[in-house]
């Protein structure tokens, strides 16, 4: 549960002291408020191609950023140089830079009463991601690729199998007395096979597993097999005639619809009127079957953290409830602009003002299986990949390149490519006619399979 208690450091580290020291020095130099972020990370990547190691990469890095306020003026600086000289220069530049920014009545760090962090173990960090000896890491990558290559003789080439691991450590301190830190770990295994038909036409697809601990990673063989199946089913893809048919989004591409809604309810787009969802709070924006939740508190989640980018405890927010827009997603600044309370979705990079990012952001599943959804459709499109980013949240206009499978008689009939899917998001959200039961988190944004009606499939 959220707590506003600021003491009891979980891990006493030098970085924690450093961040607090920078904040102290900034305020001593005249800043009315200050905030410091320190980030430290390690990464390991290995890529095996056609059975041979192609790339090994291993490194760590560290960086620090500070944001200072003089009343309602703010500026930020960052550095990868942790020498006394480097830190002095960073601080001095921030104090100088704040002189040229404008008085913004809404600028500032959160009130002390809002600050705090979730207590207890959020299950975000497992040292085991880094525990595998070098040869075993390579073996993970090799096994994933081999399973794909061995799956079918038409898989003749590959962009490789990979195993990556990373850990990150983040510290945040501010002049309201907040200091917090957390570590997160991550590992993944992936395969990218290439299949070829006799006439030489090639198709590529991929599959992956990602987890915070090795224990939860899918076996590399399973990843390789799925990658092979996904690639093989694309062979012989053709264009189709332009048509108005139901479109089924597989879970990987369905997350893009959730991302468009995220962009539309993001406080930054809302206060500028850069989203057609601005001003729609309490109104229906989608069908009754659509419920969307953002939850930064789920133990082990890819979008979980004990506090947001401004030091506010993360929370669970009902964004869309049965089709009604119940909350925007906000940080302190956009909340003040809109006369609302922050939803603890501040995301903080090293530089600049905090943005807005998702926690674990997902669409509630429905009752039926994806197979049943497809079974309902006489003629339609099952999309497995989008190309390009053709969504305009100001107008709702939506047009993207796509590939996938043609649905005929309730079955996936043949692969299709070089087509477009177009419509307008304002209508599309209402036309999500069905949501399947296959919700699975493969990242911080997750969606079940879904069906959208009323779209134009552009082809020949």
């Amino acid at each position, binding site marked *: 549960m959220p707590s506003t208690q600021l003491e009891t450091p979980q891990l006493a580290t030098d970085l924690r002291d450093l961040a607090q020291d920078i904040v102290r020095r900034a305020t001593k130099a005249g800043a009315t408020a200050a905030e410091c972020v320190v980030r430290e990370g390690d990464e390991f990547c290995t890529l095996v*191609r056609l059975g*041979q*190691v*192609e*790339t*090994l*990469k*291993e*490194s760590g*890095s*560290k*960086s620090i950023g500070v944001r200072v306020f003089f009343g309602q003026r703010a*500026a*930020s*600086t*960052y*550095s*990868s*140089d942790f020498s006394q000289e480097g830190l002095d220069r*960073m601080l001095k530049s*921030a104090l100088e*830079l704040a002189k040229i*920014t*404008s008085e*913004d009545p809404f600028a500032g760090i959160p009130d002390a009463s809002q600050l705090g962090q979730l207590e207890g173990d959020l299950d975000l960090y497992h040292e085991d991601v880094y525990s595998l000896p070098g040869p075993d890491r390579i073996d993970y990558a090799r096994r994933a690729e081999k399973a794909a290559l061995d799956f079918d003789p038409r898989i003749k*080439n590959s*962009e490789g199998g990979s195993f990556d691991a990373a850990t990150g450590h983040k510290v945040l301190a501010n002049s309201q007395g907040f200091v917090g830190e957390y570590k997160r770990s991550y590992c993944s295994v992936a395969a990218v096979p290439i299949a070829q038909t006799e006439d030489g*036409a*090639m198709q*590529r697809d991929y599959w992956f597993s990602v987890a915070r601990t090795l224990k939860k990673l899918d076996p590399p063989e399973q990843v390789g097999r799925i990658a092979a199946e996904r690639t093989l089913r*694309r062979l012989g893809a053709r*264009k189709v005639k*332009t*048509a*108005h048919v*139901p479109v089924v989004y597989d879970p990987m591409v369905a997350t893009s619809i959730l991302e468009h809604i995220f962009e539309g309810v993001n406080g930054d787009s809302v206060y*500028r009127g*850069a989203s*057609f969802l601005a001003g729609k709070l309490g109104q229906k924006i989608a069908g009754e079957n659509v419920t969307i939740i953002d939850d930064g508190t789920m133990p082990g989640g890819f979008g979980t953290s004990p506090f947001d980018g401004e030091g506010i405890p993360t929370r669970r927010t009902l964004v869309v409830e049965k089709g009604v827009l119940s909350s925007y997603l906000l940080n302190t600044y956009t909340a003040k602009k809109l006369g609302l309370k922050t939803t603890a979705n501040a995301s903080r990079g090293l530089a600049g003002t905090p943005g807005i990012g998702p926690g674990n952001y997902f669409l509630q599943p429905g009752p039926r299986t994806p197979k049943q959804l497809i079974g309902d459709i006489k*003629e339609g499109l099952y999309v497995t990949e989008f*190309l*390009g980013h*053709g969504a*305009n949240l*100001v*107008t709702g206009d939506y*047009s*993207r*390149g796509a*590939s996938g499978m043609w649905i005929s008689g309730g079955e996936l009939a043949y692969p299709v490519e*070089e*087509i*477009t*899917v*177009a*419509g307008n998001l304002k209508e599309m959200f209402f036309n999500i006619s069905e949501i399947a039961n296959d919700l699975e988190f493969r990242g911080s944004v997750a969606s079940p399979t879904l069906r959208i009606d009323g779209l*134009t*499939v*552009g082809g*020949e």
Partner: protein
Amino acid sequence: MGKSLEKQSLTAKQRFFFDHYGITEKDLQSYLAAALSAGGDYADLYFEYLSSTSLMVDESMVKSASQGISAGCGVRVVSGERTGYAYTDDLSASRILHAARTAALIASAPAKTPVAGFQKTAARSLYPVTLPSVDAEIIAKVELVMRGDKAARAYDPRIQEVRASYSDELRNILVVASDGTFAEDSQPLARLNVSCIAKTDGNSARGSSGGGGRVALDFFFGEKTPEYFAKEAARQAILQLDAREAPAGEMEVVLGPGWPGVLLHEAVGHGLEADFNRKKTSAFAGLIGKRVASEKCTVVDNGTMPWRRGSLNVDDEGEPTQETVLIEKGILKGYLSDKLSARLMGIADTGNGRRESYEHIPMPRMTNTYMLAGQDNPEDIIRSVRRGIYAVNFGGGQVDITNGKFVFAASEAYMVEDGQITAPIKGATLIGNGPDVLTRVSMVGNDLKLDEGVGTCGKDGQAVPVGVGIPTIKVDRLTVGGTARKDTGGFMQ
């Protein structure tokens, strides 16, 4: 071997890492020796010191200002087709040696010795700024964004939201390699952008415009002013208020000059990067000498254009950049290569080895990619269209290099009916097949234009600045991803 470093007279700018970090030639030799301590064919070190500034005006207030510094060194060891890589953001000898020994783990053979003595790469001077913009007075940059904001608002009362942003950087690099390569460069980059939203009762639209290059700050006070970009952004937003639905299906497409060259970047550029062709994962693999475009098409990649965003004096492996012909009169001529692919494929290194930063492994990337001008008059090209679209502005694009399918999204386009431009249409994605889209180019204009300097290309998670360009061209058949129902056949359900 080549001339040793001590015999060269280095300018102050070229001695950046020697002066700031006390690095000596002897140090560099010892780091390379550590990198090759377990064998390997080649090792290199990439030192980078990047300083940057960014400013943003929103609601006519300077809401955000930031500055930062990032420095580090990446060590690469290549053994056959294998690459080991490690980096450090601490430029002390012990950390660089540690990175070198980590990268060395890729090889497992007796130690090798780097060549004694470095040979300095003779570099061009494509962006000789006297005062890099990062070092210029911040107040002048504030003036730019404030002017951008003001000009966009003044354009039309319907322009109600404006954001103007400015960013610049100066990247000092030093590349040294076990083959004796020694190259330094100081690479400025600046960009100004204005975006806005036009609103009427119940209708909104957005517009955006920007540009820059490897230029000094005076570029934005002389050649391309904030007012220039602001008016363009505002014009687009107002125009889009009245846009009608875009058509769907295959039709004739005319691309306007300049940024629509993003077509070339996606449709052919990526597919011709040598790494994909070495691995035979590109739809263009094995097509050298074959026809991939109509006779009217000649496409080049040119990293040597003064002041351009995609240009470099030397690439990120220390090779001088060059002009490389990719397609000549429709025939595929060559690939874009880096050191690794050049060696493994037995082809020349075209100086296209690039990386996002010291944390990244270099790979073949484009610089400025464009089609040479043809003979046709742009007006004749429009007049020749029976029914199609004329697309003059685009957002980004994307390509699947293995099956060759690519998209690029038109943000400003018009219907063309019986040779006449009729009405503006809403944004739509265009999709095609890289290896054959250019075979359907039937007319090429005499009006080649390069883009304003806004392109950033992503590949394997690495972003690098690039340029594109194209004259007005006509593609006889391309799929347009609109929504308009008229003229569309097929299934209705």
